[in-house]
C-alpha cells in the first residue's frame, strides 16, 4: 500500500511543480506592464538621422553659428565621445586632417562634428557618427558608420556606409554600398554599381535620368474592380478603367495605359512604355521594361526588376516601392521611398534585364 501512495504523492507533486513559479509570479508580480506600444512612433525612414540631429541639437555646448565664427583649425575634444573639428580644407583637401583628427574618427561610438566643409581621405575607416555642418566629401574606398550633413554629401567610388546616411542632397559613387538607410531632403543620385537597402528622397535619380518616362496620370476614384482568372496575357478587360486582380501571372502589352491598381498572384510583367495610374502589387516578381511609369506604390513579395528610363511616383505624389531584392537600371527616377529586404542594386542600362 505504501508504494501506490508514494506513487500518487509523487505524481501530485510533479503536477503541482509548474504552479510554484506561477503562484510566485501571481502573488509577487515582476512582469505586469502592458506590451509597449510606442504611440508617438510613425513610419519614418529618417528616424535615426532625425534622432541624431536632435541629440546634437540638445547638446548645450554645440551652438553651430557660434562655433563657425571661431577662428581656429584645431580639433577640440569636448569629451571622450564628442569631438569638434574646426579645420578648414578649402582648396587644400589633399593635405587632409592631422593624425589626431583621424584618430577620433576611428573611435567607436564617438560623435565627430565638422564645423566647416569636410573631406574624408580615400580608404579611411570611420567608426564614429559624423555630423558635417556644411558639405562632406568622402574619398574612394572609405568606410563610414553613420553620417549626416547640412550640405551635400558626395560618396566616392567603393565607399561603404554601415548604418545610415542623411543630407539634403547625396551623390553616391559607383560601386558604393549603403548597408542601411540613405535619405535626402531633396535629392539622391546613384551611380551604376551602387547598392543600398532602404532609400528615401523626393527625387532619386539612378544614373543619368534625364530620359525617364513622363509621370502617369492620376486614376479616377472610385473605380470598379475586375477579377481575371485567365492570367498570363493581357485581356481586353484591362482597357477599361478600374482595379484588376489577376489570379495568376500577367503580362501587360507595351504601350498600355491602365487607370487603376493591379494585383497579380504570379509574376507581373509590364511591357515597354506602359503607364499605370495606380499601384502594382504582386505575390511574386514584378518586371518593368524600359520607359514604364507607375504612379502608386509598387509592392512585390519577391523581387522587382526595373528597366531603364522608368519613373515611379511623381514629384508631387511621392510613393513607396517594397520588395525582397531590387534591380534598377540607370536612367530611372523614383520619387519617395524604397524598402528592400535583401538590398537593391543599380545596374547599367545596357545590362538590365528589364529592357
Amino acid at each position, binding site marked *: 500500500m505504501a508504494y501506490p501512495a508514494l506513487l500518487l504523492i509523487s505524481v501530485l507533486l510533479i503536477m503541482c511543480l509548474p504552479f510554484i513559479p506561477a503562484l510566485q509570479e501571481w502573488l509577487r508580480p515582476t512582469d505586469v506592464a502592458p506590451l509597449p506600444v510606442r504611440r508617438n512612433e510613425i513610419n519614418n525612414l529618417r528616424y535615426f538621422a532625425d534622432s541624431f*540631429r536632435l541629440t546634437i541639437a540638445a547638446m548645450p555646448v554645440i*551652438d553651430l553659428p557660434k562655433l563657425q565664427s571661431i577662428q581656429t583649425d584645431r580639433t577640440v575634444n569636448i569629451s571622450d565621445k564628442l569631438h569638434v573639428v574646426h579645420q578648414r580644407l578649402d582648396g587644400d583637401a589633399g593635405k587632409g586632417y592631422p593624425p589626431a583628427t583621424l584618430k577620433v574618427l576611428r573611435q567607436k561610438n564617438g560623435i565627430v562634428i565638422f564645423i566647416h566643409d569636410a573631406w574624408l581621405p580615400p580608404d579611411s575607416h570611420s567608426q564614429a557618427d559624423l555630423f558635417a555642418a556644411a558639405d562632406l566629401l568622402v574619398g574612394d574606398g572609405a568606410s563610414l558608420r553613420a553620417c549626416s550633413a*547640412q550640405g551635400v554629401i558626395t560618396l566616392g567610388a567603393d565607399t561603404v556606409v554601415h548604418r545610415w546616411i542623411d543630407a539634403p542632397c547625396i551623390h553616391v559613387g559607383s560601386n558604393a554600398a549603403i548597408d542601411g538607410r540613405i535619405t535626402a531632403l531633396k535629392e539622391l543620385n546613384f551611380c551604376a554599381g551602387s547598392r543600398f537597402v532602404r532609400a528615401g528622397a523626393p527625387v532619386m535619380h539612378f544614373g543619368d535620368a534625364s530620359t525617364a518616362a513622363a509621370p502617369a496620370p492620376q486614376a479616377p476614384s472610385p473605380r470598379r474592380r475586375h477579377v481575371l482568372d485567365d492570367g498570363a496575357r493581357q485581356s481586353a478587360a484591362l482597357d477599361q478603367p478600374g482595379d484588376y486582380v489577376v489570379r495568376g501571372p500577367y503580362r501587360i502589352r507595351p504601350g498600355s495605359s491602365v487607370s487603376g491598381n493591379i*494585383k497579380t498572384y504570379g509574376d507581373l510583367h509590364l511591357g515597354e512604355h506602359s503607364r499605370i495610374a495606380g499601384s502594382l502589387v504582386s505575390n511574386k516578381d514584378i518586371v518593368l521594361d524600359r520607359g514604364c511609369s507607375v504612379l502608386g506604390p509598387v509592392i512585390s513579395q519577391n523581387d522587382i526588376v526595373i528597366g531603364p528610363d522608368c519613373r515611379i511616383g511623381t514629384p508631387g505624389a511621392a510613393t513607396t516601392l517594397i520588395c525582397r531584392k531590387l534591380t534598377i537600371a540607370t536612367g530611372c527616377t523614383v520619387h519617395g521611398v524604397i524598402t528592400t529586404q535583401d538590398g537593391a542594386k543599380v545596374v547599367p542600362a545596357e545590362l538590365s534585364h528589364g529592357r
Partner: protein
Amino acid sequence: MDNRLGIPGNAAPCRRPMAAMPRLPACLLAFLFIPGLLAIAGKAHASSLTLDVRTAGLDLMTTILAGIIFLLVIYTVRHYLFTLNRLFGRQRQPYLDIEQATWPAVVVCVAAHNEERVIADALNALLEVDYPRDKLIIMPVNDRSTDGTRAIIDRIAASHPGRFTLFHRDSGRPGKAAALRDATARIEAEIIIVFDADYLPARGLIKQLVAPFFDPEVGAIMGRVVPLNAGANLLTRLLDLERAGGYQVDQAARMNLGLVPQYGGTVGGVRRCALEEIGGWNSDMLAEDTDVTFRLLQHGWKTVYQNRSECYEEVPEVWPVRIRQISRWSRGHNQVMGRNLMQLLKNPRISLRERADGVLLLCVFIMPPLLVIGWSITIIQFFMTSHQWLFGWLALSGMVAYGAFGTNAAFFEMAAATYLDGNRNRIRLLPLNIFGFLVSLVAISCAALSQFMDALRKRELVWHKTERFRMAPAAPAQELALPRDAALPGLAAEVS
C-alpha cells in the same frame, strides 16, 4: 475585439442574435453517426439479427468519440503549425513599410454606447494621428448613449471644426452592427476605419491600417489589440496571455500562410465599395466583424492582418464580465458559422487552404461543447465497458493524450507569443491559464446550449455591451518624444 480562447481552436468575436441554427452540428452528427450505424448493421447481420442495444450504444459512443478526437487532433495540429510558422517561418507583412503614397480619403468611426469614461481619450488620440488632415474625418458613432457621451463628443468636435462628422443615434435597433450600418450610409470616403471607444490609436496607426488598401484585392484590415490594463489582476494577466497568443501567433500565422485572417471589428477597417458589394454590415449578426470577414471572402476579397499595427484596449477585470463577453462571442460566432459554413465549402473560387482554414475558424466555438461531450462519453464508456476494459482504457488514454498534447498546443502558442513579444516573467503564469480554460469551456458550452434552446424557441439573441473599467484618462505606457516637435538651435529645420 479578441479572437482567442486559449483552448482547442481560437475564439472569435461575436455580437448578435441568431436567426438560423448552426448547421455543422447536424452534419457533424450525421458524419459521426453513419459509421456507427453501419457498424451496428454489420454486427446485427453477423449475429443473425440479434440486436444488442447496449453494444450498439457503446459502438455509437465510440464512433462519436473517435470523431471528436479526430477534430481535436486537427485543431491541435493547426495550433502547432501556426506556432512553428511564427517561430521559424517566413513572415509576411508586405504593406507595413508603405510610408509615402497618395493617401485615400478615410473616415474613422468610433463606436460608442455609454462611453463617457473613455471616449474623450480615443477622440483626442485620433486628432493627433499623422494622416493628412484633409483626407481624414473622425465620425463618433454615438449609439443611443444615455450618459454624458454625446456632450463630450459635441464639445470636442466644436473645438476642432472640420475634423468631425457627428453621428448621434437616439433610436433604432441596438448593437454596433446596426449603428455602423446607419453611419455607413452617410460615408462617402473610400476607406472606413473602425475603433471601439476604449481604444487609443497611436500616431502612425491610421496610415498603417490604410496602407493595405493599395492592394485592390484587400477588402478589410485588422490590427493587433493589446490589453492596456494587463496588470490589473490575475484575470487581466491571463487574458493578456490569451490575446498575445491569438494575435501574435494565430492571426499573424494565418497572414503568413495565406489563410483567413479575421477582421475583428475594431483596430481595423473595410473598403467601402467591398462593404457595399457584400450588402453592408449585417445588423442581424452579433459578430458583425466575423460575418464581414467571411462574406468578403465569399466575394473574392481578402482580409489582411498587420501584427505591428498595435492599439491598446481594455480587457474585463472581473470574471462575470469575462464570462458574458465570451458567451456573447460564442453565440455570435456560431451564428456566423450557421450562415456561412456551407457556402464556404461550396465556393470553388476560394482556394482549398482558405476553405479549410475558414471552416476550422468558423467551427472554433463548437469545439468546447464537443470536448465536454467527449469527456462525458469517455467516463460513461469507462464504466459501461467494465467487461471490455481495453476500450474504456483506450478512450480515456485518448482524451488524456489530447489533454497533454492538445491543450499544450494552445499553451505552446501563448508561450511562443510571449517569447516573440519579448516578455519573459509573465510566461510563468501559463499553468494558471488552465483555470481560464475551464471557465471558458463551461461558459461557451452553456452559451451553445442556450443558443440551441433559443433557436428551438425562435428567440432572438440580444446584444450586450462589455463593461468599461477605466476610471481616469489613460496614460500611455511608453510616451516617446518625437523629433518633429523639437527646435534645433543652429541646425536647419529639416526634419520631415
